[in-house]
């Protein structure tokens, strides 16, 4: 069988003598699948037939194309390669033909005295949902469009946002079985060619048999899979992609996934939201600082609480120490057990809430949050201070405007809690050291992950913790090592002019 197949796929079309033989060979190549169909058509020049997989092809469109083909312009050679037609060379192999068919093309062959003449008719059947706002990346102001599962629609959305001659789209095919189409999008004059090449190389190096989503690909191409931190920015928003492309980054998209994978990216990109740029700069800055604070709270607050209760009670001011002591005294467990119990409960509620329909999800939230929270304190299992700490942590961890970073933050606090329960502040300091070293070491497409901080770039601090007004950000951030570092000139020269 294996040997037969290998012989079969290398056969050339020229070697075939008749239409049934060609059909039989292709059919054999496709494993005699039953939705592979042959349709005879009549043309003046000789015997002709069309073969395709009926579940992949838009019938109506195919009929239109065939009709047009028969009626108007059958003169071999005049038909150039267009978006609907492509000429296929007669010396292509069964393998080439088979792959075209699997992609959804209808292949038309004419056999006459001159031999075989082949065309591919492109009429794929597309069933996609409409353009909607992505549910996990909603914004208050700004565009409400999001990607869908069709790559063409997605590229169209990006292209209509930036009509630039420098916008380059590269098609790549991955997955030995699935033959999925991936596209790499970047701005030729800004993105660093070395980074582009690195990205393409990594995608092409994937030797997996299938690639069913972009998240699956991400693991193959990221720099460090063992790190808890995401090294590519996932987004379903065309405006976010466009903004990142303009900073010299590169986006990877895939047929069937509404998500773009943007790299090289740094830690702070996960804390930026399109909303920051739509509002006033003070507002944007405030919320960005709030988000960074939320990271600190979400990762360190439970650990700090455990350390204070377990080791450093004296750090609390006298007025607070007494109520704290009273709250903790009745609890039979150590703070770490308390914290783990409650964190686990919250994670359970969250996980249960995701897949439930909305009304039930809310009920679970109320029952889980309010009822369990209240009862657990009354039962004396957990101190009410711990409830405050864990609730604040949970809320903080959901502030991150990126889903992957959100999960990272939630996972990260557990090692810190364990360290704090074992060694107090000393443990937290050690954990913090390890975390910082890890972040400094981490790279995304070979560019440092903590980039405006380490290595330190003073000019790109304008768009990190704070968001300075856009007309002050004249340089592109250096993270993606863009070729063209200058973003814009002085847009507000009129201001100085008037003052003169």
């Amino acid at each position, binding site marked *: 069988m294996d040997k037969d197949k290998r012989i079969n796929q290398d056969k050339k079309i020229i070697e075939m003598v008749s239409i049934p033989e060609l059909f039989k060979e292709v059919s054999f190549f496709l494993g005699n699948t039953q939705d592979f169909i042959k349709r005879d058509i009549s043309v003046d020049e000789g015997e002709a037939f069309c073969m395709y997989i009926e579940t992949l092809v838009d019938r109506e469109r195919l009929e239109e194309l065939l009709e047009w083909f028969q009626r108007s312009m059958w003169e071999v050679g005049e038909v150039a390669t267009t978006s609907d037609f492509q000429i296929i060379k007669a010396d292509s192999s069964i393998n080439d033909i088979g792959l075209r068919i699997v992609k959804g093309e209808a292949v038309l062959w004419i056999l006459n005295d001159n031999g075989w003449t082949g065309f591919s008719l492109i009429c794929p059947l597309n069933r996609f949902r409409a353009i909607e706002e992505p549910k996990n990346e909603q914004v208050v102001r700004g565009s409400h469009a999001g990607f869908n599962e069709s790559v063409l629609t997605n590229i169209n959305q990006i292209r209509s946002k930036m009509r630039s001659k420098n916008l380059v789209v590269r098609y790549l095919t991955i997955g030995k079985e699935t033959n999925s189409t991936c596209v790499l999008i970047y701005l030729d004059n800004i993105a660093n060619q070395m980074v582009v090449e690195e990205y393409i190389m990594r995608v092409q190096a994937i030797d997996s048999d299938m690639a069913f989503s972009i998240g699956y690909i991400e693991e193959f191409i990221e720099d460090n899979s063992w790190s808890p931190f995401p090294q590519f920015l996932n987004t379903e928003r065309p405006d976010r992609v466009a903004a990142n492309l303009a900073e010299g980054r590169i986006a990877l998209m895939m047929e069937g996934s509404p998500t773009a994978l943007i790299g090289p990216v740094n830690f702070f990109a996960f804390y930026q939201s399109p909303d920051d740029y739509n509002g006033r700069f003070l507002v944007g800055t405030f919320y960005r600082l709030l988000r960074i604070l939320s990271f600190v709270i979400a990762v360190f607050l439970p650990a700090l609480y455990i350390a204070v209760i377990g080791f450093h009670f004296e750090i609390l*001011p006298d007025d607070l120490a007494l109520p704290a002591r009273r709250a903790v005294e009745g609890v039979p467990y150590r703070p770490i057990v308390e914290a783990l119990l409650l964190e686990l409960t919250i994670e359970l509620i969250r996980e249960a809430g995701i897949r439930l329909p909305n009304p039930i999800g809310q009920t679970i939230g109320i029952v889980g949050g309010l009822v369990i929270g209240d009862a657990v304190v009354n039962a004396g299992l957990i101190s009410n201070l711990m409830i405050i700490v864990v609730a604040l942590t949970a809320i903080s961890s959901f502030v991150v405007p990126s889903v992957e970073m959100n999960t990272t933050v939630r996972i990260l606090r557990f090692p810190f809690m364990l360290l704090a329960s074992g060694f107090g*502040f000393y443990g937290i300091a050690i954990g913090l050291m390890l975390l910082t*070293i*890890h972040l400094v070491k981490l790279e995304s497409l070979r560019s440092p992950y903590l980039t405006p901080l380490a*290595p330190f770039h003073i000019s790109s601090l304008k768009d990190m913790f704070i968001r300075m007004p856009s007309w002050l950000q004249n340089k592109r951030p250096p993270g993606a090592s863009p070729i063209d570092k200058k973003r814009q000139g002085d847009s507000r020269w009129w201001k100085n002019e008037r003052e003169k």
Partner: protein
Amino acid sequence: MNAKNEITGWQLFFIIVQTQIGIAILAMPTDISKVAKHDAWISMLLAGLLIQLVLLTYFFLLMKYPENTYFDMIEKCLGKFIGRTIAVLYLAYFMYVMVISLNGFEQVITSWIFEETPKWVVLLLYIIPAVYLARESVVILARFKMLISFLIPVLVFSLFWVYLSNPQYLYLFPIGGTGTDSIIKGVQPAIFALIGFEAFLFFGSYVKRDKAKNLKIASFGTLFVTVFYIFVIVTTQIFFYVDEMIIVPYPVLYIMKALEFTVVQRIDLIFLTIWMMIACSSFTSYLFLGANTLGRVFNQEKHTKMVYLIIIIVYGISFFPETETEVAEWTDLLMKISILFSIAIPFVILLISLFKKKNRKEQSA
């Protein structure tokens, strides 16, 4: 994206700062005050100026052999065998510094927060991040040090509180009243507190572009540390009277302990947490240097495995000095040999290299 194993002048600046500021900052004001009394800051100033001169030696050496590491220079001047021997001696010196550093750290931790925790646990935790960082290339090391330097302003600002509460400037007077002898005697512990400036010599060879300019930037690192230390000394001395200072082992921590906020009562614990990270960063420099030296002795390109080897040995040795007096004896020894390794040997090498060059010129003439 910078090329591998290349650092900028500012990165070198922060490597030096982060190597110098280590364990010493807590005990340093007391140690110097024991000798120089209320003029400890003058001793520190003199020590700082002296070290600036030593840096000049380093600078000439690095500029004379811009392509080479320090050990290459020694081999060029004194031949392969002696060069190797000196490298081994330096390795021993680095490891000795590490042992002292571990013991000093352990003393602070046990006396201040964890009285019961066994030494091996405290030290084991301490070396984990150090190993994790020292395995990496010098570029990562430099980035980390630059990042963690943001903690130094935090320390400075928290000390400013002293100036707001009840500073006793009179404690500093009469300036120079302790007499020249005591002040000059105080220079020795002051130099010891500044140990780590030799990082300039070892890490300087990683600076490759614009060498003269970048090395000049970096040489301000020690000046920065000197000024910072003078600030710390003056701050502690206007808080404690000299007679108190001498019996207070970690004056900075005591100052912090007295400080109160509405939210946090014991600032010293937070200060100590920050200090741990800075101390560990200083320790990492020596681990990195030690591993690189060992790699050189064994002709290994990569220093990763050497890090493990060194840390095991250092961890083992650090249990030998058991009592506090033993640690103090070991530290006294370091005070003496550090001057040999950081000042005497580089100076001799510079002299030999100058002499050699003249020789060659005469020969060719």
